[in-house]
């Protein structure tokens, strides 16, 4: 089995909350090594469980996402024992940074496209689990890649789909507070266009229900 080459070619790109990303070369291709680092704050046993589970599931879901028609990086290698995944490096910019400097009409197009992709995942029975604009990369040709499926799952339940979209809405609210309403409206348009208005409405109704479950929510009935 190939082992991970931590030669001088490997450079720390980003230290995220859950994993560190290293830039490397994989048989002549620019690649990312994603290492899920042990978390000292939780018991080793629980930590190992969580990291292995996510390391196994993430590549599977990314692979299936492609079948659903959603762009994701190619997986080159997985090492469960070390909680590492080597995958294709995607050139481009994170949607998080891009959205805040994009003009209104383009904003709508991008969000529409995001909505279409999320709908395609859901239609195929996939839940991303962490839909934030940090987990989407726009490549120079305009295509949006979805990354970070570590919290994803396979499910066709309206409940799971509702939570998935609710998370995206929350991410837009906290990170893009100036334009989130417009952004989310466009996401919904894109989503409805793929899933059909009737089914999409059921998911939106579920979002409202999920929001009402929250402890302090104005919409909740007294």
């Amino acid at each position, binding site marked *: 089995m190939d082992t991970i080459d931590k030669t001088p070619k490997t450079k720390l790109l980003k230290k995220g909350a859950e994993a560190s990303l290293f830039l490397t070369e994989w048989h002549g291709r620019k690649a990312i090594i994603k290492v899920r680092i042990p978390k000292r704050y939780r018991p080793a046993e629980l930590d190992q469980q969580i990291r292995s589970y996510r390391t196994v599931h993430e590549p599977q879901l990314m692979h299936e996402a492609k079948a659903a028609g959603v762009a994701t990086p190619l997986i080159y290698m997985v090492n469960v024992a070390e909680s590492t995944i080597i995958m294709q490096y995607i050139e481009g910019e994170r949607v998080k940074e891009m959205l805040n400097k994009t003009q209104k009409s383009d904003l709508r197009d991008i969000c529409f496209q995001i909505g279409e992709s999320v709908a395609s995942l859901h239609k195929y029975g996939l839940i991303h689990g962490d839909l934030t604009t940090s987990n989407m990369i726009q490549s120079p040709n305009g295509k949006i890649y979805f990354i970070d499926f570590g919290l994803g799952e396979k499910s066709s339940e309206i409940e799971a789909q509702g939570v998935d979209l609710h998370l995206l809405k929350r991410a837009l609210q*906290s990170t893009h507070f100036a334009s989130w309403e417009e952004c989310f409206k466009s996401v919904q348009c894109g989503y409805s266009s793929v899933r059909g208005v009737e089914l999409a409405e059921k998911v939106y109704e579920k979002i409202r229900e999920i929001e009402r479950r*929250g402890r302090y929510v104005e919409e909740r009935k007294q």
Partner: protein
Amino acid sequence: MVKVHQKSEGSYCLGIESTADDFGVGVATFDGEVLANKSDSYIPAEGGIHPREAARHHAEVADTVLQDALSKSGVKASELTCIAFSQGPGLGPSLRTGATVARALASYLEIPLVGVNHSVAHIEIGKLQTGAKDPVTLYASGGNTMVTAFESGRYRVFGETLDIALGNCLDVFAREAGLKHKKGLPLGAAIEQLALKSGRLISLPYVVKGMDLSLSGLVTAATTALQKGDCTLEDVCYSLQEHAFSMVTEVTERALAHTEKKEVLLTGGVAANKRLQAMLKVIAEEHDAKFSVVPLQYATDNGAMIAWTGTLAYRHGLVTPIDQSMVKLRWRVDKVDVPWIQ
């Protein structure tokens, strides 16, 4: 809220807290000195908080707590600049009792009333007492579990529970396990003590969804595990804490990585838990951030935090006319402008 002109020389604010089971009165100076912080808790004979019973308790003790706080502070009622009260979020009957006391005082003394958001107050007292300036805050109590950070004029919610609060999760399990709330030993503290006697991790659901988390399934699973009987109460308490705290810590770490702030603040009633403190300290260290935890007397609901936040709002011209002082049961933290932060 409406804007008025301000004054601040030799000023004191009296704050009234009554969102749930605690009735508290605090007095703070405009410079951030807490002169008094008194409270009285409603302890249910059995089960959780009965809102009407809690309100009855608050009405009974209001007079005594108020007088205790004033005499402790050494400030005469006639010297007060304004009266602050927690306007929400919380339980209706409890909130209304505190609001009634606040309105009566403000009208009698003919001084302004300042409605304060309870969640904002927990963050502000944490910052005041620890010196934190711009932290990612985990506010965890019986009624709230959220990860917030200041961004463009408001405290934004980066992660929160999708169902029950962390303190509620521990309390419900404790009651299911037959533990009783005693004076000076809240149910959460009882669980913490039992957890220390075990190191055996049983498998429970670990539900993190993006930046949010879900705790209701965890309580059910923990209760079922206890009823099955192949593990001890101590084992379940330990496992419940490890799972629930790991989840909130993971979410806090995500917010920390996302916002790239350099401080982590733990506030709210569950902040008293040493195990939770230890977990957050680890992630703060890993991200080169400073970790602070609110002192115990300001962790649970208290009047001082309302008084202090009242001074901040008042100084920025935010007062609440009586006819706009109705309580807001579901007043989210991210709906409140905080003009005192630049």
